[in-house]
């Protein structure tokens, strides 16, 4: 007992936050140890001290029996003691090398709030918080089945972050779970403070710069993918769940689609896919058209573009690059800046990058339009990683267009397709519903079939394919 207290004091350098209180029950000494920064002194004094005051037989079993704390752990080793002490438990030390840890955690996380990164006009408004138990609870609230299985891990040498792997046992494929399990067990790192670290550790990070795991802030999204057979990873202290494996089509699906009729959703999806290509191709194609394939532009438009470019000293490529970079700077600063200053940024952006640059003759007005449509289109996607990935390929398209015109664009396009389709994560090829074609998923891609008819899961994700047996048209 003394050994433990001494070691603890030594290891923590006599940290004053660790309170060691001696108490004697019928001449037998017990120690109560807790860390005051993460424990709630209320519950210690209310439950532990008060219960102990009423206990007169100082045996381990008796105390365990009489203590009014609901959650406790029986410990035997020093490592356990130090872990539980650091996670907000109160430790009671007995003389006979038996120790109890009682949960007295202080509530350090905020309550459940509305999501800040995923906006949807309809749908539930709760979002994950920093507390992993709350998060699992939010998911469990939606899946009231014993088949929601959870595997727990403690990752990080110092942080000892609790990480949970969630899946629905009867839906998810065993191979995927096993692989993820193996990959998670292999992680050996100083600390995990974000789910992003986990993701980067278990995939080949730069093989494909498009994201293949989705980070979801809403329990809604997590549950939706769990039901499809995907796997969800939650980490303590991170309000974002990781959904894996995903394919490219998943980034075009938004929550509101579930609330609308399929024909309207189809039209929206077409717009989304269109914006994908617009944001990828517009600057590149513009460069290709104005510096190589001028014959495609109608004569009148060509003359007016030529007139606008008359006084611009840079080549079109440099011009586009300048504007792209300045837009990215704007976006970057807009993300970082507190909201009270953001109007200043928008004024600077609109005035200086728009008006002034044109009248100073640095860029042509048409270039402003090109960059505006490109950047507005890129903002239709929720996942920031996806937008960033698009930026890389946009740059490649610009280079291709600047070197070989439309031919260069085509070559970069082929390169992009090779790159995307040669990547597969956890057995799901990235371009999944399109190539290889999977009918079950094609029904929910550019074209969305009526919900009644989306009756199958993706066989790459699940062996239990049928998901909807409603069937047939509605009859009275």
């Amino acid at each position, binding site marked *: 007992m003394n050994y433990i207290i001494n070691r603890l004091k030594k290891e923590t350098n006599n940290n004053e936050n660790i309170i060691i209180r001696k108490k004697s029950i019928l001449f037998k000494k017990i120690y109560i140890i807790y860390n005051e920064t993460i424990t709630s002194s209320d519950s210690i004094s209310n439950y532990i001290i008060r219960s102990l005051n009423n206990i007169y037989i100082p045996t381990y079993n008796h105390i365990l029996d009489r203590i009014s704390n609901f959650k406790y752990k029986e410990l035997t080793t020093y490592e356990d003691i130090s872990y539980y002490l650091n996670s907000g438990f109160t430790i009671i030390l007995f003389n006979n090398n038996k120790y109890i840890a009682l949960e007295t955690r202080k509530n350090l996380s905020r309550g459940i709030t509305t999501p800040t990164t995923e906006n949807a006009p309809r749908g539930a408004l709760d979002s994950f918080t920093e507390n992993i138990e709350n998060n699992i609870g939010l998911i469990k609230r939606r899946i009231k089945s014993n088949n929601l299985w959870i595997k727990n891990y403690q990752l990080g040498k110092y942080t000892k972050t609790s990480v949970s792997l969630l899946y629905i046992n009867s839906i998810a494929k065993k191979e995927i779970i096993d692989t993820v399990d193996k990959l998670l067990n292999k992680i050996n790192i100083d600390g995990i403070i974000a789910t992003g670290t986990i993701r980067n550790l278990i995939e080949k990070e730069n093989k494909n710069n498009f994201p293949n795991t989705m980070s979801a802030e809403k329990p809604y999204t997590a549950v939706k993918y769990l039901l499809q057979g995907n796997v969800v990873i939650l980490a303590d202290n991170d309000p974002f769940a990781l959904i894996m494996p995903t394919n490219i089509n998943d980034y075009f699906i938004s929550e509101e689609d579930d609330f609308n009729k399929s024909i309207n959703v189809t039209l929206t999806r077409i717009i989304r896919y269109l914006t994908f290509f617009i944001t990828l191709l517009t600057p590149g194609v513009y460069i290709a058209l104005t510096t190589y394939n001028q014959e495609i532009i*109608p004569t009148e438009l060509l003359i007016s573009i030529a007139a606008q470019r008359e006084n611009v000293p840079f080549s079109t490529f440099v011009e586009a690059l300048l504007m792209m970079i300045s837009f990215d700077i704007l976006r970057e600063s807009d993300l970082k800046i507190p909201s009270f200053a953001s109007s200043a940024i928008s004024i600077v952006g609109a005035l200086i990058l728009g008006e002034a640059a044109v009248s100073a003759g640095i860029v042509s007005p048409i270039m402003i339009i090109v960059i505006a449509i490109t950047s507005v289109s890129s903002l239709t996607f929720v996942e920031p990683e996806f937008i960033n990935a698009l930026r890389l390929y946009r740059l490649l398209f610009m280079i291709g267009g600047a070197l070989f015109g439309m031919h260069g664009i085509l070559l970069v396009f082929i390169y992009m397709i*090779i790159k995307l389709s040669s990547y597969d994560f956890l057995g799901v090829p990235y371009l999944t519903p399109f*190539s*290889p*074609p999977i009918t079950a998923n094609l029904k929910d891609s550019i074209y969305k079939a009526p919900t009644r008819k989306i009756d199958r899961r993706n066989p790459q994700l699940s062996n239990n394919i049928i998901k909807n047996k409603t069937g047939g048209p509605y009859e009275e």
Partner: protein
Amino acid sequence: MKKISYLELSSIFLVILITFNSGINLFLIKNTSGIDSWLSIIIGYIIGLIFLLLTIYISNYHKELNLFEKNKHLFKDFIGTIINIIISIIFFIIAITLLYNISSFINTQFLYHTPILITMSLLIILSIYCATKEINIIAHISLLLMAINIIMFILCNISLIGNIKIDNLLPFLKTNYLNIIISSLKIACINTLPILIILIIPKEKITNQNKYQKSLIITYIIGTLISLIITLTTISILGIYLTNMYEYAEYMVLKKVKLFGFLERVENIISMKWITETYIYLTLIIYSLTKNIKKKNKNTDNCISIIIGIVLVITTNYVFKNITIFNNFIKNIFIYIIAILFIIYILITTKIIFTKKE
């Protein structure tokens, strides 16, 4: 082992069937069969049905082996290797032809001042990059690109309907019958004999094996239709005299396309179809040649592909100094080289029949 869906297989098959429509088919036959070229296309593809059936027959022998392994299995090591080398050489020549055809097309039509070496190397680099991956990835890519191509093909043909003058196809059947037959033999040679290379994908790799036959046959019909439509629209829109005059008549037709009523002069974008088709074909050839040469060691695999690619570019540059040499080569030599594949077909089938009897 990653499997390939039957749709992806058909897309690769379609590439083999229609790639030569980009500048070579019509060039070969327009002078001999003239206005009735479309008839020779039909007859040619009907003759080609024989090879399709033979291919399906061969594919059923030892489903787990690819073409080259099959040959070695059938003919024992020595003769099998010789046959494999002959097949490889023929496909190498096809690759050279395709490469020069497409890069000279690109150079004469949109990149006038760019050296042909650069155009070639860019395509070949992408091909090598793709060929070093697995066949299922080539299949993914070909499905995607062909889907885009077919959509583009349908769109531009719809917009061309207004320009078609059926009168230009008259008088009907006034050319010499012998000429039509000769042209159709040429068509059959060029477009349908090389489908042998589809056997590089063993039948066992297909997810839905019972659809193998059906999908190949349907694709064959689609390929025939596409070739027919290309020939018909070219001759009926340009007229036989202009068709005969232009180097790339099929491309000149695309200049008349007006997509959605306002997108004019988009022939450079539409003709991307030619490039993507040739690209997939080249990739397939490089992949199969690599498969033939390859040892078990995976690392040397990539090296082989790269070497094949470089040799391809160098030979193409060395053999074809200008387009006239190339045109003469196609007219006088190329067809006979491809015709050797016919003998190989017969050899393989007879050998299979005999081994089955034993």
